[in-house]
């Protein structure tokens, strides 16, 4: 029974990947991509990696939303004819979700429930913070350089096109 469950768990991401690539409609492809990410997050949860699973689910949903929003010009004509889901509300929702996430990261230590339970992490002293930053920058410098280079390539690839005179 356990094996059958695992095989079903393995088939879902493959099937959703196939649908995402073969679908001609962007909306369906984005939904399949989201399903793919969520099923893989579920596998990560089974493999005792809950934090990776949470990040996977959030990133997968964000990528699927980006995929949907990037198809906006093609859907513009359809939206004008009365499509219920237009791009602007979707962008507003995405921005709101990002703002809530960022505010949550900043405010997590001040949440009353966490402080009452004593589970909020204590604020580090100034010297400890400096030592921590120095240790992290030394240990993860090559990784940060790699990420920086890839993001640089991404920014160069995304630069606005110059209009021809």
């Amino acid at each position, binding site marked *: 029974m356990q*094996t059958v469950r*695992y*095989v079903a*768990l*393995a088939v879902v*991401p*493959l099937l959703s*990947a*196939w649908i*995402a*690539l073969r679908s*001609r409609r*962007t909306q369906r*492809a984005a939904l399949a*991509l989201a399903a*793919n*990410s969520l099923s*893989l997050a579920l*596998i*990560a949860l*089974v*493999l*005792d*990696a809950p*934090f*990776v699973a949470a*990040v*996977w689910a959030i*990133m*997968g949903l*964000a*990528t699927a939303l*980006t*995929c949907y929003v*990037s198809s906006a010009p093609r859907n513009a004509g359809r939206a004008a004819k009365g499509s219920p889901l237009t791009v602007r509300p979707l962008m507003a929702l995405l921005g709101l979700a990002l703002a809530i996430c960022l505010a949550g990261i900043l405010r997590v230590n001040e949440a009353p429930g966490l402080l009452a339970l004593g589970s909020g992490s204590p604020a580090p002293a100034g010297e400890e913070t400096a030592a921590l930053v120095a240790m992290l920058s030394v240990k993860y410098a090559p*990784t940060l350089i790699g*990420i920086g280079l*890839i*993001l640089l*390539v*991404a920014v160069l*690839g*995304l630069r606005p096109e110059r209009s021809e005179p």
Partner: protein
Amino acid sequence: MPFWLGAVTSGLLFAIGLMDCWRRSAPSRAVGVTLMLQASALLFVLAANQFSALEGQAVALLLLGLMPSLHVLGLRLWSRVDSGD
């Protein structure tokens, strides 16, 4: 989940993504890049589970963090290839 089943799933997912990148007539090639990254992240999580090494989870998180930017970059680059720039 058994290691072999996860590895086979990861390999097939990677192959599906790669196949789509190979066929340039497909409509959404950036999805192929995303799927290849997903497959790599799955393999690292599997390895971390099998060998009890947290580094595998860290690399998986790194790949997932890069996923959106590479997805958008893939969309741009392939659209340029299509337009002949």
